[in-house]
């Protein structure tokens, strides 16, 4: 149903049900139509199905340069972090001691790495990296974790093939009461 038709229908319905009540009841369809193509530069969501990946790409070798200049102040030169929160590399969910949870040991989806770096990193200048720079930086983080080769060109197709070590480590509790 078109928005216009819906507005008319809703308006008529309200009029028949609530005649005499203030005109506020007619103010129920105020959204303006917009198209997905108009949202291309606005929608940053990159879910695991790969539907949100942009063009561009690059390797960990390229990413190392960006990482060392843009990321290492918080995350360390080797992703070792400057605190438990900023550590990106290492850890083992099955370790005997309390497990260290990092991108490599904990994160179930590689898409989250793309999504988060694109929307929120670097913390002092979010959204300042180009799509190719995001691919390159996350290629380096994945490479430091031994998940991909340094020479792999990470792009929308190859990122979709990346499997994370802890991919089966999560239980969906969204419907728990």
């Amino acid at each position, binding site marked *: *149903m*078109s*928005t216009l038709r*819906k507005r008319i229908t809703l308006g008529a319905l309200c009029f028949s049900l609530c005649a005499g009540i203030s005109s*506020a*009841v007619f*103010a*129920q*369809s*105020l*959204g*303006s*139509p*917009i*198209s*997905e193509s108009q*949202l291309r530069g*606005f*929608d*940053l*969501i*990159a*879910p*695991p*199905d790969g539907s949100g990946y942009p063009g561009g790409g690059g390797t960990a070798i390229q990413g190392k340069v960006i990482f060392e200049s843009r990321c290492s*102040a*918080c995350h360390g030169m080797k992703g070792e972090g*400057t605190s438990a929160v900023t550590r990106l590399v290492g850890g083992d*969910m*099955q370790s005997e001691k*309390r*497990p260290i*949870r990092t*991108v490599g040991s*904990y*994160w*179930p*989806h590689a*898409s*989250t790495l793309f*999504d*988060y770096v694109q*929307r*929120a990193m670097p*913390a*002092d200048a*979010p*959204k300042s990296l180009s799509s190719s720079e995001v691919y390159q930086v996350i290629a380096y983080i994945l490479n430091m974790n031994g998940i991909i080769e340094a020479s792999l060109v990470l792009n929308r197709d190859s990122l979709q093939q990346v499997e994370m070590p802890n991919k089966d*480590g*999560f*239980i*969906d*509790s*969204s*419907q*728990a*009461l």
Partner: protein
Amino acid sequence: MSKQELEKVAGNGLINRRHLLGLGLAGVGVAASSSLLGADAGMNLEIPSWSKQPGPGASGYGSRSKFADDMQRLSGNPNPLYPGGGASRSPLHQLQGSITPNSLHFERHHAGIPDIDPSRHKLVIHGLVRQPLVFSYEDLLRYPMVSKIYFLECSGNSGTLFGPNPADGTAQSIHGLVSGAEWTGIPLYTLLDEAGVEPEAQWINAVGADAASMGRSIPLNRAMDDVMIALFQNGEPVRPEQGYPMRLFVPGCEGNISVKWLTQIKLSTEPSHFRDETSKYTDTRLDRKSLQFTYPMGTKSVITSPSGKMKLERQGVYQVSGIAWSGRGSIRRVEVSADGGRTWADAMIQSHQSEKALARFLIPWEWSGGDAILQSRATDSQGNVQPTRTSLVTEKGNISTYHFHGIQSWAVNTAGDVANVYA
């Protein structure tokens, strides 16, 4: 009424709550704050200076007394590399009732507070809908709104109590990531219906307009329930630190999913698996599997007075007071113990018992100068009972430190010092 008439209902000095109901406790004992009164006893009262000259007139925007400005949110040291991160905690030990003033509502930010001009802010609903829509702030102000009182709690609240040693803290420093307010806004289903949800849609993905573009995924069935787009908080426009000009509000659930500065709602078949629902805000169990999308906050209570780092100056009757809440219903019962959980007495629940809101509880207690351990235990309308810390930590482990809702123990020693302990 004489001391002898007070009916003791549990060990170590707990007094029947009926003594609160108009029977009064005057003359029975005195609380710590009354030491000044004691010093004044026997003095002649005179007209004070402020009664002899007119004060300033009305003002455009009110402020509190300069004598009451010690009431402050408590924040940790900012990280110079990430100054917009972090949190501040409500002064639970100083507040009364069940509504938190907006200036003292707890905060948690992931990339600071954006300075949003509402005339340039947009809310987009798109994805699996018949017609993607964009709304302005002015558009949204014209919709019929609902007002409800709800608590909001960060899932990291009280997380220090998962640790092996009890933190030397206050009710504020340990539990201050919870607040209560009246939220006014548009039921989310109103706008989702307007866009027309496609049958295959199962999730909404909500994103804020802060520098982190913080996002969370919420199942559609929950989103269509009591979720609102909140525009007002305690009657005034939502404060910038709470999401101005609009935030998602998901009652009863971990605060992080009530996405602030809301700008995008995308409907999809699957969740987005944002960083803040994979890397963070997930709960790793002892078997190393991790629970994802653990939304409701547990049945919980905390005594806010007497509480950590307070001092009982003299023996006598105190009002043990605190707050209780549940993400799954209303608070039906709060019990208090003064002997570390051996015996319990029912506290009076003062405020209206509405769903997913803070409830204030109160019970008189006579401190005779000995050791005591004060605890409170809440039961909600679904029959969920607040667990002991030991049983919670035994069940959940402490790899993750979210969703702590165990019983808090405040020890009172013979000097009257109050401290957080594990008991």
